[in-house]
């Protein structure tokens, strides 16, 4: 427990977890449409504002888990309620809390039927997403991790597009099937280490076979969530059919859970297996980057295009994690946030055009630049960010990841470069069609430009695009301590193993 910096006084993290849940319970009793909208906005807004103090009380020089709370929960099985944040999770918590009010705003007009249940699902989602990022007890983590499937399933299945039934079931089955073995791995770790407290499971002398088995169970669960090539097939379906808010949550937060899990669990709990299996995973990431790029290039559906681009972008994140050096891992964490900001905004933009044309077909949205100048201006900024144009956020992230990759293995880094080029190709192709189109554009004169609400929704995203793009230092500072600590421990572990093996032979 010396790894925890217990927070005295107000339990901020628990407040962040359970406030949306309480808000959701209120919605069970009051069903008014307008009330539901304003109430959800209020609850997510309050959660977002109350998450700001996290930054103030967070001490980035410490490598401990901060703002921690620990209560006994099920003593017989050594299960405790322990939450806390460190440099790896704090940005993801903030990303979640800050993005949720905009998800509510994005659904303001989009969702016209069964508004209260929709907002109920959104709020419950928020609870479980924050819970996943702050849980330091593996059972608590798993409960949030799995519970999330239910509201997300309902968001897609009830409010989704025409093929929503297929997409939602695929999403549910894929993710659930991936995480059943995770449960076995958790129990096995508990039996070895005697506790479900995650930090106590780290850096234990497990045998190599045990580590490899646990790693594979972890990897299957997290790779499906990321999703890594070749486990990605649920993603395009789910993204395309989900309502805008669902797509934004999926892209911005849900996908990050996979990479967060790899960082939090794979590296420190199964270090030997990580060293052993890093290379194939790195090449899988490259395959994902290239595959995502080429597939995105061929899409006619805007949401599908962005979905496949996510496969590519998340490939960069896993690439950064498994090169196992400071630049790579920091770049990966930054890239997680960047992808959340940029892709979230792109989905919002597609949602906005969908509300007008009721189609996601690229061919039907050509040439809207003339009638929607604000829309295309914003779209341009976010598209530039999506293919890592210098000055935008993704540039920093991808640059750091590539720098880390070069440090690790030149061939690997060179293989990732075409992915960056492909990103420019497919984003510019989309941009060209939407802004100008060709000579045979459909009549778009009935379109109205973005309203105030929509511009307000997008502005903060734009702010972060340039803030991280031009001055990333504050963000890097937040994560640097924890990442360094993690990698130092990893190095010590490796040296220790080498010494041990020399002594043995």
């Amino acid at each position, binding site marked *: 427990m010396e790894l925890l910096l217990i927070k005295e006084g107000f339990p901020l993290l628990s407040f962040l977890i359970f406030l949306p849940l309480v808000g959701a319970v209120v919605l069970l009793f009051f069903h008014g449409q307008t009330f539901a909208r304003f109430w959800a906005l209020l609850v997510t807004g309050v959660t977002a504002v109350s998450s700001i103090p996290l930054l103030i009380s967070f001490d980035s020089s410490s490598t401990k888990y901060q703002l921690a709370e620990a209560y006994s*929960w*099920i*003593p*017989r*099985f050594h299960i405790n309620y322990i939450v806390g944040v460190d440099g790896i999770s704090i940005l993801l918590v903030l990303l979640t809390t800050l993005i949720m009010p905009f998800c509510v705003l994005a659904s303001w007009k989009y969702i016209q039927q069964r508004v209260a*249940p929709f907002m109920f699902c959104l709020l419950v989602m928020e609870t479980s997403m924050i819970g996943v990022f702050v849980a330091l007890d593996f*059972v608590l983590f*798993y*409960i*949030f991790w*799995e*519970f999330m*499937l*239910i509201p997300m*399933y*309902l968001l897609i*299945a*009830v409010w989704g597009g025409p093929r*929503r*039934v297929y997409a*939602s*079931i695929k999403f*549910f*089955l894929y993710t*659930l*099937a991936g995480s*059943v*073995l995770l*449960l*076995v791995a958790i*129990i*096995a770790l*508990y*039996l070895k280490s005697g506790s479900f407290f995650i930090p106590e499971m780290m850096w234990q002398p497990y045998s190599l076979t045990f580590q490899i088995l646990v790693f594979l169970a972890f990897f299957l669960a997290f790779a499906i969530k990321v999703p890594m090539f070749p486990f990605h097939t649920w993603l395009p379906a789910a993204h395309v059919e989900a309502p805008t808010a669902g797509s934004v949550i999926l892209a911005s937060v849900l996908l990050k859970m996979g990479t967060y899990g790899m960082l939090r669990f794979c590296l420190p709990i199964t270090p030997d297996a990580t060293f052993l299996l890093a290379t194939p995973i790195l090449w899988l990431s490259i395959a994902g980057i290239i595959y995502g790029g080429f597939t995105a290039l061929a899409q006619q559906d805007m949401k599908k295009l962005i979905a496949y681009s996510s496969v590519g972008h998340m490939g960069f994140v896993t690439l950064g994690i498994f090169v196992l050096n400071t630049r790579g891992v920091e770049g990966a964490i930054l890239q997680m946030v960047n992808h959340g900001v940029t892709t979230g905004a792109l989905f919002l933009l597609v949602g906005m055009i969908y509300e007008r044309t009721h189609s996601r077909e690229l061919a039907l949205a050509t040439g809207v630049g003339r009638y929607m100048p604000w829309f295309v201006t914003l779209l341009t900024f976010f598209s530039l960010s999506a293919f890592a144009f210098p000055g935008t956020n993704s540039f920093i992230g991808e640059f750091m990841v590539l720098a880390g990759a070069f440090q690790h293995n030149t061939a690997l880094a060179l293989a990732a470069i075409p992915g960056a080029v492909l990103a420019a190709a497919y984003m510019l192709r989309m941009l060209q069609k939407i802004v100008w189109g060709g000579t045979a554009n459909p009549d778009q004169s009935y379109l109205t430009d973005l309203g105030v609400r929509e511009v307000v929704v997008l502005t903060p995203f734009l702010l972060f695009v340039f803030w991280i793009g031009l001055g990333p230092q504050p963000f890097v500072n937040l994560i640097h301590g924890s990442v360094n600590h993690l990698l130092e421990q990893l190095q010590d572990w490796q040296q220790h193993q080498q010494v041990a093996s020399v002594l043995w032979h």
Partner: protein
Amino acid sequence: MTIFPELVLATGALTLFLVSLAKTPSERLSYAVALVFGTATFVATLLSFHSQGLLFYGAYAVDQYSQLFKVLIAFSLLISLGFVKNLKGVSIDIHAEYYLFLLLCVLGLMMLVSSVELIAILVSLELSSFALYLLVPMRDDRTGLRMQMEAGMKYILFGIMATGFMLYGMSLLFGLTGTTYLKDILVFLGNSPPQPVVVIAILMVQAGFLYKLAAFPMHFWVPDVYQGACNATAGVIATLPKFAAVALLIRFFILPTGYAPMVVELLAVLALCSMFYGNLCALVQKDLKRMLGFSGIAHAGFILLALLTLKAEGYGVAIYYIAGYVLMNLACFLVINQASQGGENVRIDDLSGLYKRQPMLAFVLATGLFGLAGIPPFIGFMGKFLVLTTVLRADHLLVVCLAVINTAIAIYYYLSVVKVVYTVEPEDRPAIAVGPMVQLSGIVLVIMITLLGVFPGKLVDYASTVVQSLH
């Protein structure tokens, strides 16, 4: 006070008998009597929760163990009485008899969990079984196919066969030890050298309870009986007897056989067969009750997993698991009873658009099904998780892996029901009105399924300590 609940039930049954003597027995009167006595039983079990005593020449033990089960049984009875209102699917002139046999069955189950002597166990088991055998064919003959008769015949024939096995096992036990008291048998077996025949005797006795639990290989009756019995009866068969089955399985598994590893292996095989058979068959079902029947077989497999540790903790977890299973099944049967307009069977398609027709029922059903599928934070998840933990602690990695693969298979059929409820349009299916009693039962069930899932500690601890006292 010690046998207060049993006395209340017996009085209730007699009252219903008097009601049934009237020329035109009133439907509302019989329901009211049943409900009053159901509530009184629940209150009585709570009042006598801490009673202790050994009655009837030591054949009938009232202790913490039995009282815990009595509370669970009485609670489930009360909830099922809360939602069977109108008893659709049973002819009106036999409503009084229906409730009469229902109470007698529960009386038998309560006596069963208290019995600690072979003959007493047999008598109570038969009392509860024969009451249930009668409930099945009481369904009205709506289809003209006499489906209920077929179900009743299957239930009784398989049941009697299981009883036969049990009697044979009991005779062997008596022959080996010269006594019919479980306590003396325990001492005798503990002091004698291991004999293979002990294993056979105990397994044969267990066959009778595996039949009640619907575990492989005593599961054949399940789908047809669930389908043939009316919705209310199927709800009773799926829930109440399982408590008694688990209670008695534990009572017999604490007897030392001398061949523990063999018993463990056998249980593991039975558990896995139950799971695979139940889950794979459930995948293709169109009738909701049949699906729940097969899912019940799979869950019986999980109970056997918990039991195979042969330790107090595993037994405690098994009790927790069965309590959770019954709560979730009650939630499902509550919805089946309401969704069935005139007592006919409910196909999964019939639930189309239930979300629009009655959101509350859809919510209860989704909670029950997600719980059965083992999604957190519901009680089904915690039960599954604790079972897997205790089994893996006993070092059965392969069994645990196969069990979690089963949960991945199972999610598909639970989810396809949820899909129909939430995403398919109702078309011309009418809205469903639910009364206050049903709403109350539904809300209580949802709250219990969630709360007991999040806070399992107290119940598991209590159950484990209580089981410890049996040794």
